């Protein structure tokens, strides 16, 4: 006779109850992520939920090979912990891309072994298991390879600029068709590992081909989309394995990724299909050259650090509009010092954060938080835009396209319709720029030629430091 305690622990209903506890904690944790003050604890709550889900799974009687499980967990820990500890905040987009990739990769690998297992024990499983396995294989493989390419682009291992491949849409269409056709062949009765491998390979090529040409400003959308796909593939795997924790965990990630994808696409006024179709706006790129023509012959005003210091010191409200250039120049700490100095003088300093500032959703907020900027000084676009007419000075640092008034006014501009920060409505705009070269999208910015705009040329960090030292003399 076995001990009553032991039999209770391995009872499948008990394990299902533990799963309910686990995914409840996921949802509670996500809810706590809706406020900066509770977010850190929310993350811990979700982590506890994960620990419970893992322990519950290990208690299932049919689970075996504990040595190999321990080996896998040990390898993952040895790789994951130092990576998470050491990654720089500017490199978060790459990190998230890589994490999306390994998640999708794990799903694809498990689905492959599951299918081989069913072939070994007598052939295709029933459709309610087979279809989720095939879905998980396709989506997992796309996510793994697509994420790896996104990582390589963000890490600048391969060029990050968008480009077009000849016949790209046709090739992508054929690859998707091949994967789906092979899946249908398996569903309708073919029992072949070769077909399954064909699915994995076609999906892998598709993942590569879709992400490879996408670049620049579209990367936040791509990362969000791959995040959603990885979650969906995990949920499908949960259905195949009859595991509720996997289903709920996976679909929550799928929902989150979908929401972020939509938000990012809206913030750039781009449709998701047009981003996946590749390049920045296709015909728009050539339109950019034409759009720039009306700024020709107009001149920009340049200013110096001493002048900027005086304007800032006598302002009552200052807004900083940061872009990724700020992070590249590592200027966020100097900007915060400048803000501290101004606040001591009684100047109110706020930060206007465009949804696509940085290289992934919310990236700029993390970079500023790292520099000890309080999160309640960070204002979202919809919140700050009505305030600009009451702002004395706006400092645009490393941002370009997200402040381009052509998006509001010039119907011929490739970014027409994209929501922007209305920095041009503030009393004075000071743009910190290295040179007159256009931004990521290669579009000229009429903001620079406005009467209330002055340009401070030079490296962003050095310029801010110069202003800071001048302001101490005011």
């Amino acid at each position, binding site marked *: 006779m076995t001990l009553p305690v032991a039999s209770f622990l391995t009872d499948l209903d008990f394990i299902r109850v533990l799963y309910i506890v686990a995914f409840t904690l996921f949802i509670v944790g*996500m809810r706590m*992520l*809706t406020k*900066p003050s509770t977010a*850190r604890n929310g*993350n811990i709550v979700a*982590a506890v939920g994960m620990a419970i*889900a*893992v322990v519950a*799974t*290990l208690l299932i009687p*049919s*689970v075996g*090979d504990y040595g*190999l*499980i321990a080996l*896998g*967990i040990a390898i*993952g820990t040895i790789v*994951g*912990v130092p*990576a*998470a500890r050491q990654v720089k905040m500017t490199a*978060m987009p790459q*990190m*998230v891309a890589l*994490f999306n990739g*390994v*998640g999708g990769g*794990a799903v694809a690998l*498990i689905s492959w*072994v599951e299918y081989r*297992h069913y072939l070994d024990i007598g052939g295709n499983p029933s459709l*309610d298991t087979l279809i989720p396995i095939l879905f998980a294989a396709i989506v997992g493989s796309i996510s793994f390879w697509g994420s790896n390419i996104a990582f390589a682009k963000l890490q600048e291992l391969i060029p990050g600029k968008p480009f077009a491949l000849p016949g790209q849409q046709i090739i992508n269409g054929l690859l998707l068709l091949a994967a789906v056709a092979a899946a249908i062949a398996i569903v309708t009765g073919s029992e072949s590992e070769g077909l399954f491998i064909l699915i994995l390979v076609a999906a892998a090529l598709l993942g590569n081909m879709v992400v490879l040409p996408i670049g620049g400003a579209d990367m936040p959308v791509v990362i969000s989309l791959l*995040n959603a796909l*990885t979650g969906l593939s995990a949920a499908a*795997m949960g259905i195949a*394995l009859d595991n509720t*924790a996997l289903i709920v965990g*996976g679909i*929550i990630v799928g*929902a*989150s*990724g*979908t*929401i*972020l994808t939509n938000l990012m696409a809206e913030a750039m006024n781009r449709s998701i299909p047009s981003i996946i179709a590749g390049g920045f706006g296709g015909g728009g790129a050539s339109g950019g050259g034409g759009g720039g023509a009306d700024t020709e012959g107009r001149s920009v005003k340049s200013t110096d650090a001493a002048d900027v210091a005086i304007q800032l010191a006598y302002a009552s409200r200052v807004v900083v509009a940061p872009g990724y250039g700020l992070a590249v120049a590592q200027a966020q700490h100097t900007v915060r010092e400048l803000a501290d100095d101004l*606040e001591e003088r*009684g100047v109110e300093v706020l930060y206007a954060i465009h949804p696509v500032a940085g290289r*992934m*959703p*919310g*990236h700029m907020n993390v970079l500023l938080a790292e520099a*000890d900027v*309080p*999160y*309640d*000084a*960070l204002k*979202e676009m919809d919140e700050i835009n009505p305030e600009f007419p009451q702002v004395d000075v706006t400092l645009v640092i490393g941002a370009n396209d997200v402040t381009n008034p052509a998006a509001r006014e010039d119907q011929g501009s490739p970014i027409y319709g994209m929501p922007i920060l209305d920095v041009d409505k503030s009393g004075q705009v000071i743009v910190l720029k290295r040179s007159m070269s256009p931004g990521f999208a290669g579009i000229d910015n009429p903001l620079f030629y406005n009467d209330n705009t002055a340009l401070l040329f030079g490296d962003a960090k050095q310029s801010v430091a110069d202003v800071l030292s001048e302001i101490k003399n005011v």
Partner: protein
Amino acid sequence: MDLITELTILVLAAFVGFEVISKVPNTLHTPLMSATNAIHGIVLLGGILVIGSAEGFFNKAVLVVAIAFGTINVVGGFLVTDRMLEMFKKRPEPKKAEGAK
């Protein structure tokens, strides 16, 4: 469990996910994404579930890789999210009173 029950869970959980996550402010979108990275590490359970019945060196080796991948997600995802959220601080109170005049 039958397929219909599982699909019911899937659809309801999707709506819960949409409701909860759509309330996450822009400020926290990067930590949200890395936290969801950690949660999709739950595929780790898939590897644990099937490795016992898998036969042969190849299958086992592939599953060890899958379990390692899932663990990277879980451990790395939660850790890096914690690192980020630790940095999010409110404006110190006295300063705020001064700024508000």
